Structure formats: C-alpha cells, structure tokens
C-alpha cells in the first residue's frame, strides 16, 4: 500500500548503519585496551604481577565486599520500612533517602576527611573537651580502606534502596496474603515470600553499586588505597606506560564483565515474573510507639550521614571559611557547564538515533547494537579514558605524518589533545543513561499511534512533528539533564583526558583536595552537589507519579 510504504522511513535506510556504528564506538575502547594489552612483553606483565597486582586485586575485592555488605544493610531495611510500614516521618524520609545520590563519592570523602581528621572539628572538639593532646588517644583514621568503604556505602546504598523499594511496592500485599492464608505468620511470610521475590531486584541494585565501586578513582586515590583505578592512573601517567595500564585495565574489565553477567542473570529471572497488578493499597504495617521511632531512626541514619552532615559542612565552608575567587570560580563553572552540555546533547542525539533505529529496524543486529551501547555505563572512566586515548592518538599521528608528507606544518594533536577525546569518552560512558530514558519514553509512544496517524494520511515527518516530538519532549529533557549531571560529576576520565590547562569544577575540587586545601575545595564541591540534586528530584517525582497511578 502506498501509505504504509511511505511510512516505513524509506528515506533513512542508513539509520541501521548509524546504530551499528554507534555500538562500534562503545566497543572501541574495549577493543583498544585488549589489543594494547595483548601485544605486550611478558616481562612487563611478570613485573606487574609480582609487584602490585595482588595488592590491587585484594584491595578491590575487599572494597567490593565491604561496600556490598554495607549497601545491603543500609538499603534493604530502609526500603522495606519505607515501602511497607507507616511510622513518623516516613513520607519525608521516603524521598530524603535518595539525596545521597547527589553526592559523588570523592566529594563526600573530602568532606569527611575535613570533618574527621586531626585538625577537623570533631577531633578538635574532643581534645578541647578532654584536654588530650596529640597521640593521647585513638581515633578512626578515615583515610583508610575502611574509610573508603564507609564513604562509598553512604553514597551508593540508594541504588539498592531504589530497586528494593520498587519491588517491595510492586509485590503488593497479595503475595503476603497468599502466604498467610496458607498458614504462615507475618514474619515467616516475609522471609519465605517477600525477600526471595525481591532478591533479583536487590542483586541488580547491588551490582550497580559495585560497578560504581570499581569505577571509583577519587576516593581511593585520596585515601591512599591502591586499587585498579589508581594503579591504571599511576601506570599511565606516573610511568607513561600505556601497555601496563592497558593490562591492568584488561584485568579490571574481567571484574566488570563478571558483574554485568551477574546483573543480566538476576534480571533474566525477573523478566519472567508475572506482572502482578498491585490492587489493594498495600496493607501498610503501622508502627507505633518506640517501634515507629526506631524505624524513623533506621531510615534517618543514611540521610544524616550520607547527605545532611556533608552537605551542611560544605555549605558552612563555602559561606564562612573559603576564600573564593569568583572570577576563576565562574570560569570553572562555565567550563563544566559547556562541556557537560555538549556531551549531553551529543549523547542524547546518539541515543535518539539508536532508539529510532531499533523502532524502525527491529532487526537482530540493531537490537544487539542497542544492548551493546547500553554497556558503556559499566566501564570505569579509567578504562574508557585509555581506550579512547589510544586510537585517537594513533589517528593523530597518522594525520601528522600525512601533513609532514605533504610538506605542511604539523597541526598538533587534533583529536587526542582537545575536547574531542573527552566528549567521545563521555559519550561512551553515558550513552546508556541517555538510551535508558529515551527508550522508555519511546516505549510509551505506542506504534498504533503511528499507524493511526498513517491511517489518516499523514506522512513520516508529520508523525514525528505532531506525535513524537510532543510526546517525547519530557523524556528527552530528562535524559539531557541526567547526562549533564553525570558528566559534571565525572572525575577520572576528565582528569586523564582534559586538554592542557583546562579545568572543571570536579577537577578543581580534586586538585585542591590533593593539596590538602579541603576548605577551598568546598565551593566547587557544593556546586556539583547542588546541580546533582536536580535529577534526584526528577527521579523522586517520577516515582511518585508511578505510585499514584498504581494506588
């Protein structure tokens, strides 16, 4: 039929190839890292193995173990309480528990160091009260492995909290009712039904938190904990040893792939689950008296330590103690802003291309390409940095060779020495974020809408203009915003790839903290946290809307 043929977007058969190309882009750093790691002398590998690898592996594993246990203990009880119970302050805590999402791990690490180290207010106050002097007492050293665990738990537990709470709400009370009608008591039902049913979601949240743990550079570097990311960074910059760094990156990749597989596996079980319609408003358990206050206390701890104390301290430092040079501060803010905005627009455009490619060419290759493009998020910034740096540097050299051969002046590092390499790295890492938002937005534009418009004699452009753009506007804006904030917070890739003399808020905070000028780092840190709050508020609104729809 004439109309339907016209509708099949025959204008863009290349969309499919665009999708495949974008997926190749995400794959590029992995291939580059593996290629570099493979062509390296055995003696160097032996050297790494003998000297540092064991340290990196054990520290990374310990960190994952500690953070994993911590986020479970903090996230799951809070999620259950917020989803199923009624207690004082629940409505407020329900969303306040998301606030630490706005706090990058390295910033909370700097802040707590400032609070808890020898000169900080806690120890000073203690000495003032007791009259102790230096060396008279033992105090927890925050700059340690256990400190790094604590910092990451405080900002990463929301991943577990979010996924666990969602399933607890979704399970509704019916499953519990079934168990109770079959002779199970309340607690028995909770352990035999509610927890096992929530397990896949909890594991999914946990793997996300662990991916972030593996990707972290700022915290472990500042605390002097040697892990893969610090190792890669040091090998790459300190020793200028690309091959060694690539080898370490390859081992780290192994960890990441394991996590991805675990996450996929846990989600596979979940997709089979019959979507139970939460009918009756979940029979909330009303906690009164001391039980209620205990529940409130349990939920308050993560909020207070994960957000209120560090954010309050940053605010105090910024307002009363830091000597802000506003002109340079605004320069930093502007750099951060336009870099993040550029990356966001780029990533969202690529995501739109991919999402539409998948809609109009639901061919297997395109679907795989989209899945692959979604994997970039699991890659730590350090791996991506090396992975995009290597091929772009190679290209630059070829370009320079060509210029020399033509007898022209050398153009310098056109790609690897400019913002191009940084933008490419951001796209690889955050395409998944954009893609997630865009795809769920596009999923709400039912194909029957397209078809009914087509039935009314509208062409493809009309459909796009009159149906898709209005319906997609909010999810595109949200995706832009989320990528924007993620780029703003990103540290290791920015640190490794930024052009000479180019600084952002995150990099400046890192540099000042490295110089032990924690108070001076506060304004930049606070700015990052405040901007980071925006997507948290959006997320909270989306959750509430969903909840209202199901209630």
């Amino acid at each position, binding site marked *: 039929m004439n109309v339907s043929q016209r509708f099949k977007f025959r204008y863009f058969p290349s969309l499919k190839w665009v999708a495949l190309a974008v997926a190749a882009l995400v794959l590029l750093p992995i291939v580059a890292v593996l290629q570099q790691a493979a062509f390296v002398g055995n003696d160097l590998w032996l050297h790494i193995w003998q000297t540092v690898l064991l340290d990196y592996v054990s520290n990374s594993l310990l960190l994952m173990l500690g953070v994993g246990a911590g986020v479970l203990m903090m996230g799951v009880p809070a999620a259950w309480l917020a989803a199923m119970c009624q207690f004082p302050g629940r409505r407020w805590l329900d969303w306040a528990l998301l606030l630490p999402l706005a706090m990058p791990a390295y910033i909370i690490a700097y802040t707590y160091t400032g609070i808890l180290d020898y000169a900080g207010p806690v120890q000073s106050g203690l000495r003032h009260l007791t009259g102790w002097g230096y060396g008279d007492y033992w105090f927890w050293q925050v700059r340690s492995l256990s400190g790094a665990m604590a910092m990451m738990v405080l900002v990463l537990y929301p991943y577990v909290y979010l996924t666990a709470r969602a399933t607890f709400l979704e399970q509704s009370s019916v499953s519990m009712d*079934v168990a*109770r009608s079959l002779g199970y008591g309340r607690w028995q039902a909770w352990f035999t039904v509610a927890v096992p049913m929530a397990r896949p979601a909890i594991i999914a949240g946990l793997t996300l938190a662990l991916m972030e743990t593996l990707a972290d550079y700022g915290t472990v570097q500042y605390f002097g904990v040697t892990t893969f990311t610090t190792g890669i960074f040091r090998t790459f910059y300190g020793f200028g040893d690309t091959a060694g760094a690539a080898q370490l990156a390859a081992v780290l990749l192994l960890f990441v792939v394991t996590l991805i597989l675990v996450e996929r596996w846990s989600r596979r079980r979940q997709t089979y689950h019959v979507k*139970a319609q939460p009918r009756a408003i979940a029979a909330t358990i009303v906690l009164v008296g001391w039980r209620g206050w205990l529940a409130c206390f349990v939920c308050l701890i993560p909020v207070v330590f994960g957000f209120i104390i560090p954010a309050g301290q940053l605010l105090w430092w910024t307002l009363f103690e830091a000597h802000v040079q506003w002109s340079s501060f605004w320069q930093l803010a502007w750099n951060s802003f336009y870099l993040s905005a550029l990356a966001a627009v780029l990533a969202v455009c690529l995501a739109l291309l991919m999402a539409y490619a998948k809609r109009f060419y639901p061919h297997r290759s395109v679907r795989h390409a989209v899945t692959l493009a979604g994997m970039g998020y699991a890659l730590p910034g350090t791996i991506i940095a090396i992975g995009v740096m290597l091929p772009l540097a190679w290209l630059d050299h070829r370009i320079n060779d060509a210029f020399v051969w033509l007898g022209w002046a050398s153009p310098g590092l056109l790609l690897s020495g400019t913002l191009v390499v940084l933008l490419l790295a951001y796209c690889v890492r955050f395409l998944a974020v954009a893609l997630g938002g865009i795809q769920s937005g596009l999923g709400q534009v039912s194909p029957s809408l397209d078809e009914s418009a087509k039935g009314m004699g509208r062409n493809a452009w009309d459909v796009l203009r009159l149906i898709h753009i209005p319906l997609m506007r909010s999810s595109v804006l949200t995706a832009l915003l989320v990528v924007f904030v993620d780029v703003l917070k990103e540290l290791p890739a920015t640190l490794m790839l930024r052009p000479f003399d180019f600084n952002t808020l995150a990099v400046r905070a890192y540099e000042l903290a490295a110089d032990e000028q924690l108070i001076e780092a506060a304004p930049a840190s606070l700015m990052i946290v405040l901007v980071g709050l925006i997507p948290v508020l959006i997320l909270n609104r989306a959750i509430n809307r969903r909840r209202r729809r199901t209630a």
Partner: protein
Amino acid sequence: MTEQQTALLEITDLAIDYGTTHALAGLDLSLQQGQLLCLLGPSGCGKSTLLRAIAGFQDVAAGRIVLANQLMSRAGFNMAPEQRHIGMVFQDNALFPHLTVRANIAFGLHQWPTQEAKQRVESLLSMVGLTGFGERYPYELSGGQQQRVALARAVAPKCSLLLLDEPFSGLDAALREELVPEIAALLKREGITSILVSHDQKEAFAFADQIAVMNHGKIEQLTSAYEIYHKPASRFVADFVGEGDFIVGQVLDNQQVSCVLGNITNGTLAYEAGSKVDVFVRPDDVLHDDSSSTKGRIISKRFRGTHFLYRVELASGEQVACFTDSHHNHGVGEDIGIKLNMEHLLAFRP
C-alpha cells in the same frame, strides 16, 4: 436448607468501617457444608471486603464471624489469617513467580511430613488435570492453567472453607465459560465449601448453588440462581441481574396490574389497589405478534444470531426490549405489534 443442620459459616450482624464510611453494615449470612455460594454485586458493594473479613485480612467493627463453631472475628478480636484454615484464590492468581508449580502447591504444606506432602501435591496435580506440569514455572502456563494451580495451592492444606476473589476476571470470555463450570464441578465433587466473589452474573449462575446479591454493603437477596432471576426481591436485584426495563403500572387488585401493554394477572401483590408501581419487563416477556393491537416503534435493533433484540418505544413514551427469532426482520422506525407474555409479575414501589 434444613434448619436443624448447623451452618459451617455463620455471620451475624457484621459491620465493617473504612474510616467514617460503612463498607458493610448489619450483614447476616450462613453457609452449609459443601455449598457453593457466590457474592454477586457491582464494584464497591462490599463483596470483596466481606471476603477479606472472612479470610481475616480485615478487622470488623461489629458482629461476628463463626466458622465451624469457632469464633473468627468480632469487634476487637481478629484471629490471624494463618490460623483460620481458610484457603483463598486471588484475583491475579498471585502464584509465586520464583517457585515451580509443585513448590507453589506445596507452599502451604510446610508443616506436613515430607512424604505425605509429596503425595498430596501429586493428587492435587491430577485433581486439577495438570499431572506432569509440576516442574514448570508459572510463566510457562496458560492463564487457565495458572488459575487451576492457584486453586490447587489454596485447597492443599485441606482448608475448611475456600474463598475465591474474582479469580476468573483476568481470563478471556471463552476460557471463562469453560473453566467456571469445570471448577464448580470439581469443588462440588471434592465437597469443598466455597465462596466466590464476582460481578458477572453469568459466572455466578455457572458456579453457585446460592447467590447472594449485594449492594451498598448489604445482602439484598440470598437464594438460588433461578429465584434470583425470576423472583428478584428488590428493584436493585431485578435491575442488576439480567436485562429488563421498568414501566409504570397501576394496581387493580391484589392479583392484577394494568399497564400500557395491557393487564397482567398472574402474581400476588402486596400493594393496595390504585397505587402506582413499576413493573419489571424482561426482553423475553415481550413477544412480537403482528396481530396484536398494541404497537411499538422500533428504535434500535441488534442482531444476535439466533434472534433479534429490538428496543421498542411504546405509546406512553416508555421503552422495552423485545426478543424475536431472527426471521422477524424489521427496520428501525417501523411499528410492530407486541404483546406481553409474563410468567411472574414483578412489580416494585417506584
């Protein structure tokens, strides 16, 4: 129902409040061993609330629920659901997605000796016709099979009463037509006393010995399907169960009513002569008869294969529905002769 027999379930003067609104008030209900009862009513009539109260998920504000001579609920007391030995099948079947069919059915047998539990599961699988499906997961079953597993799971611990909360509403019409009588027969055969909640009269007719029509938190009528349809006790029941229209009539004496369609004689009326009543006319009470002097104008018609359903406007401006067999094909706007052929006179105070 013999009066000497003590009822299995005895509910007296039950009231349930949601905040300040009364979900149920002054409700009485009794059910004999082995009976299948259907609570039929529109949404919001309190039927699900009643079911949840019987199961123990809902506190009661007044009255009592007694099962097998044991007090289950009264104001201030609510025996925990897990101690009641009442099975329940839920609307969306609520099978545990992470457990196999066998594990789902065995879920309530956690206090049974292993060997006996195993045998029980096998016999239940064969009872619901799913032998060999034990190792499957719920998502691998069709909607009807899932519902049968849910039934097997609910009755597994040999409950004394089975509650079914609109279990068929998620199934398509064809499957429902097949599954409902099948499950009713199964429950009857096994002697499982059951209460079904439904808003669908066809389902109720296919399932139950007794139907309790509920409205606004009260039982309006509790009797057999036949009686509900042909002798509705209230205006609401008449209107809710089956199709029909009300037309104005005048009481002549204690046996006769006159209306625009003529005089209706068979019936006993409790209304005084001369008073106005609303006569309830079902489509099968109105016959098409070309020789009839009473005429009506066709407003709309619907072809239903074996017959036509006409909507006809009478001289008084009132409308009734009329079934004719499908050979009587008339056009909209045509006047046709109709006559009343009513077996039971149903008249209600306006």
